[in-house]
Every structure is written in C-alpha cells, then in structure tokens.
C-alpha cells in the first residue's frame, strides 16, 4: 500500500485517462473527456518532474534541458495543431503518433546504452547478468515497436498529404514478413548473447524496424490510412507501456496498455464500419482491389456510414426530406414518419419537399405520406421547398432520382431538360438513399450523386430508415 504523492499523481493520471477515453466515446461529452485526460496528463508530468526519486532516492536533474524540451515541443505542437486545416487533421494525428513512437524508441536507445555500459562494459562482465534479461527484452520491444510506429506514421502522414504515392512491388508481402523476422531474430540474438562488442547490433535492429515500418504502410491505399493510423496508434501505446515496465511506472503502463487495447478494438470497429476485415485492409491492398478502381472510373461518389448519417441528421438544425418512388417501393412511409418524429423530439426541424411528379401517379407522395399520417403542414410544394433549401442543413433524398436531377436545368440534350426540379444542391449536405447507382424512370444518370456535398447511403429505404432510427436513438 505504497501511498505517496507521486503515486497519487500517477493514480489520478491513470483514472483520468480511463474516464477521458470513456467520455470520448460519447458525442456530447467527448470534448470534456479530452480535457480531463489532458489535465491528468499534466498532473502526471509535473508529478514526475518534481517528485520523482530514482531507486536510490535521487531527484531528477537537468531541469533546464527538460523544461527546454517541453517548451519547444509544446510550442511547436500547439502551433501545428492550431494552424492545421480541419481536413488535414488525420495527417496531423499520424504525425504526432510518430513522434510518440520515436520518443519511445529513443528512450530504449538511451536505456540500452545505460544497461550495456552499466552492466557489461563497466562491471567487467562479458555477458549480461541474468537478472537484466527481462529489462533488455522490454528495451528491445520498446525499440522495435516504437520505431515501426514512428516510420509507419511518417509514411501515413506523407500519404495523407499527398507527398508519398502508393508503392508496391511483387512479392512485397513475403519481403515484409522476412524483414520482420530478421528484425525479431537480431533482437533475439542480442537478447540472449549480448556482449560489449555486438551491442552496436542494436542500431541494426533499429534500422530494420524502421524499414519494416515503411514497407508495411507503403502499399496501403490512402482511403485505408485511418485504419493504419489506428493500428500504429495502438502500437505506440504498447511501446509506451514498455516504458512503464522499464521504470516500473504505473501511469505509463496503464496509459500505454489502455491505448493499446482501446486502439486495437477501435481498429476493428473502424474496419467493421467499412464492412471489411482488418486482414483485408492490410493485405488486400497488395495489388489494389479491382472493385475500388472500377468504382473510380464511373466518377467518384462517396458513401456515408449509417452512424455518420445518424449524427449528421441528429445534430442538424433543419432537415428536408425528399421522398420519391423508391420510398413507395420500399413501403417505408411509416419508418420515414418515425424518423421525422424522432428528429423532431431532438429539436430538429423536419420538412418534406414534394416534387409534383415524384412517384408514378399524380399525388403519389401525398397518398403515401398520408398513409403514415404525416401532417399536411409539413409538406412543402416545390417552389416553397426550393426557397428553403439554402437554409437547410441536410437534405435526405429517399428513393428519389429524376426529380432531383440537375440535368433538367443544365443539360439541354437531356430528355428531362426544362422540367423544374428540387434544387437540393443548395443545401449544405445531401444524403441520398437508394439501392444502387441505377437510374430512375427517365433512365438517365444523375450528376447530383457525384457532387462533393452529396453522400450515398445505399440500401432498401425501409431498412436504412429503421437502422438510422436505431442509430440516432443510441446517440
């Protein structure tokens, strides 16, 4: 029951990390959670600086260097994080993650040298005394994991900001595995037969690990980078935990393991959200998936996940639903009304924009929505709706196609040229639900789906709406 001030600081740190991470997984409390974790981190750092005693009870020294380093790192970090554009955030995260990895690797190097000089060179031993074997193992692990994480993160960073292109060669898969084995082998050799003279092999391990990190990330496509960063993130966590073992430091241990475990789960969740397996992301990338390229040729539309769509809708001020023939086919009118009510309860303003020829008979949408008891007051005629789109946050297009096809306004060769349409593109965000990229009644493609503002949410309208409702309720 060793209770002293530093232990308390570390305990507080560990608890804030857990609480922070927990709160980070809830939209309304995420920000607070981040701040709590940051506060805990500050306590742990200050505690270390001022209260740390080594085994023999000595305080730390070199305060100048320490504060200098913190000042420099802090300033650069803050500036970089504040200046960066919203869209470039993921690459920033990747960069910072790499820094952490590098930090862990550096610690390992220093400690390695201390160990070698302390236990072998200076003590006159030719080999490592048995009791230090564990320490060495941890040092080597920290080095390898930290280096891989560092190198991988830097590549990911480069890819995301476009400086580094995808690169793969035949058999890279095998080469990677060999390289990994080499790294681990050398490390194992060091572990069991280290002497003063072969200690330099450490740098070989370092180099191999860095190379592995580079090759590991190189072939993976830019779209999958978030998953990669998440993996590397949990690697860094484990590297930090090695530090914890090394110094018998509980806060490093808990923080590191926490991130390692949560990061791994997060990676899996991310893959799930993309409907792919982790292996598929990491290995499937070799040679490039043909599916992905096929999609690209046809113009690039982007998909939105259910839960993202849920958040976008739940946090909007004003949502306009554009029903079409697909809503009728799916018989999703009741689900649609339920979504409307749910959003209303959350304070979102929901209206329906009814195009005069939506559906397959005059007034089809009226019949449909009346069946679900949608209030007449919430139905807006085309002209009225077109006036409201500019102030609309999200347009949710449910199984409509021709009636939101901008070709009617822009393409004089189109068979629907001249027909007035719903100008959904005036809204801030557009979510389109349909089952595929197939055209509607008029048989023509719809440029809207390829707009930057537009995201596709594929699936049968009824199923999608029910899932959306469930997802929003969970928020």
């Amino acid at each position: 029951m060793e209770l002293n001030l530093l232990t308390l600081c570390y305990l507080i740190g560990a608890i804030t990390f857990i609480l922070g991470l927990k709160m980070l997984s809830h939209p309304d409390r995420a920000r607070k959670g981040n701040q709590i974790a940051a506060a805990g981190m500050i306590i742990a750092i200050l505690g270390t600086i001022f209260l740390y005693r080594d085994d023999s009870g000595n305080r730390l020294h070199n305060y100048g260097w320490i504060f200098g380093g913190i000042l420099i790192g802090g300033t650069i970090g803050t500036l970089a994080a504040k200046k960066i554009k919203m869209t470039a955030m993921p690459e920033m995260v990747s960069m910072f993650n790499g820094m952490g990895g590098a930090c862990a690797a550096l610690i390992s190097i220093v400690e390695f040298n201390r160990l070698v000089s302390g236990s072998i060179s200076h003590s006159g031993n030719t080999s490592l005394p048995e009791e230090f074997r564990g320490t060495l193992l941890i040092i080597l692990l920290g080095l390898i994991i930290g280096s891989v994480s560092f190198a991988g993160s830097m590549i990911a960073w480069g890819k995301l900001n476009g400086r580094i292109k995808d690169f793969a060669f035949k058999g890279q898969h095998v080469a990677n595995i060999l390289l990994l084995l080499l790294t681990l082998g050398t490390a194992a050799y060091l572990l069991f037969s280290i002497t003063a003279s072969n200690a330099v092999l450490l740098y070989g391990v370092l180099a191999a690990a860095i190379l592995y990190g580079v090759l590991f990330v190189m072939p993976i496509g830019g779209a999958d980078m978030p998953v990669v960063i998440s993996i590397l993130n949990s690697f860094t966590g484990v590297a930090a935990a090695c530090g914890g073992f090394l110094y018998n430091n509980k806060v490093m241990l808990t923080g590191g393991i926490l991130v390692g475990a949560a990061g791994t789960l997060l990676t899996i969740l991310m893959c799930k959200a993309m409907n792919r397996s982790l292996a598929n992301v990491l290995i499937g990338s070799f040679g490039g998936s043909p599916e992905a390229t096929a999609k690209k040729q046809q113009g690039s539309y982007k998909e939105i996940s259910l839960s993202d769509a849920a958040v976008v809708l739940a946090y909007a001020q004003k949502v306009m639903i554009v029903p079409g023939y697909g809503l009728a086919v799916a018989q999703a009118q009741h689900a649609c009304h339920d979504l409307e009510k749910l959003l209303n309860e959350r304070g979102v303003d929901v209206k329906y924009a009814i195009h005069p020829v939506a559906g397959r008979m005059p007034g089809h949408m009226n019949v449909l929505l009346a069946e679900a008891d949608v209030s007449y007051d919430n139905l807006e005629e085309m002209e009225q709706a077109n006036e409201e789109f500019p102030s609309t946050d999200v347009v949710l297009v449910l199984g409509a196609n021709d009636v939101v096809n901008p070709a009617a306004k822009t393409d004089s060769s189109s068979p629907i040229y001249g027909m007035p349409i719903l100008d959904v593109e005036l809204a801030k965000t557009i979510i389109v639900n349909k089952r595929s990229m197939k055209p509607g009644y008029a048989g023509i493609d719809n440029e809207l789906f390829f707009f930057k503002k537009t995201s596709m949410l594929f699936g049968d309208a009824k199923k999608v709406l029910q899932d959306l409702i469930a997802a929003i309720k969970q928020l």
Partner: protein
Amino acid sequence: MIYIVILMIFVGIEVIGHVPSVLHTPLMSGANAIHGVVIIGAIIVMGRAEPHNYLALSLGFLAVILGTLNVVGGFVVTDRMLEMFRKKTK
C-alpha cells in the same frame, strides 16, 4: 503488474465498446494523445542522465521534445476536432 495489464485491457475494451463511428477519428486522436505518457519516460531519462553523457542528454532532449509534441499536439488536435460537436448540446 500482469493484473494491471489484463485489467487495463478489459477496461480499454469496455470503455469504448459503444462508440458511434463519427467519433472514431477523435477517439483515435485522443488515444494518441494519451499514449504521449511516454514523455514521462523521456523526462526520467533526461533527468537522470549524467551531465557528460552527451548521447543520453541529446537523445533524451530529443525524446522530451517529441513526447511533448505527441502530448500537446494530440490533445489540442482532438479538442479542435471535437469543437464540431459543440454546436448543439441538445
């Protein structure tokens, strides 16, 4: 120690079990900041480096800088990401 590790793994998994996928990125970023605890290791390295062990000093110094970058940058970036969610607290 081993108990702590295992319990921590449980906690880690339980704690983020129900994240909506919009929060994936901020959560990753927050976790990224948290593993910045390595900086404590860096500080210790630094703090007990012999004044003449220039290798340890310089590497340690670098480690402190990098670690701080990770911590500070991580938290600040996460905070900025999460600003988006503040709009409407409902």
